[in-house]
């Protein structure tokens, strides 16, 4: 059986998609998949994903309905607005929500691993995170990644 190992290190809405899309698809293609969530990526394992947002600030490649100078993007509420607009667009275009993709990963047997060091660093509780995941460190990841056909850092 082919294997895929992914490190998910980012916690923004845009960067949350690649690990979940690749993991769920690889599982559907018959891969054994493990995803290791570290640093900001740990946000993606929280029960409540409403903190996962997108920020147009510092991201000149983000398509905007109207051009918006950086100084405008720092106005309070802009981040929430951009997130709302992005989620709306994702839904309209038939793209799955993060919750949906994450559920499909679990359903397909993808192993999600939370970085214990990050958990301690940010004072997260295991209770904040979803059930059915594993906890471990760099060695846990490498133990699996060493035998993987595909290994990605996102």
């Amino acid at each position, binding site marked *: 059986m082919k294997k895929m190992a992914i490190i998910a290190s980012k916690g923004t809405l845009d960067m949350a998609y690649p690990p979940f*899309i690749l993991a*769920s*698809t690889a599982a*559907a*293609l018959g891969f054994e998949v493990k995803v290791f969530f570290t640093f900001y990526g740990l946000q993606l394992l929280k029960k409540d994903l409403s903190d996962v947002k997108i920020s147009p600030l510092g991201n000149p490649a983000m398509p905007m309905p109207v051009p918006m100078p950086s100084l405008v993007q720092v106005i309070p509420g802009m981040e929430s607005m951009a997130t709302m607009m992005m989620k709306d667009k994702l839904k309209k275009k038939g793209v*799955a929500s993060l919750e949906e993709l994450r559920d*499909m990963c679990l359903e397909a047997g993808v192993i999600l691993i939370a970085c214990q060091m990050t958990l301690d660093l940010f004072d997260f509780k295991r209770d904040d995170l979803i059930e059915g995941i594993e906890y471990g460190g760099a060695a846990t990841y490498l133990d699996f990644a060493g035998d993987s056909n595909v290994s990605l850092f996102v």
Partner: protein
Amino acid sequence: MNIDKELDARGLSCPLPILRTKKTLSDMSSGELLKVIATDSGAPKDMQAFSNQTGHELIETSEMNGEYTFVFKKK
């Protein structure tokens, strides 16, 4: 052709058509035929890749008015 099951994946974007196809096939028996209809223009390439990787044979692909039809034979 005797289609055993049909999956409507119209309006869905990557990777949902693949995930739904996989899920539907897992409830079917070996040799049965699944017809999938999708509008994702990336689907023809992805469905072929899905077939290559899983061994479920893609026995027909067609396109009409922006709608793609695929027929899989379950491994």
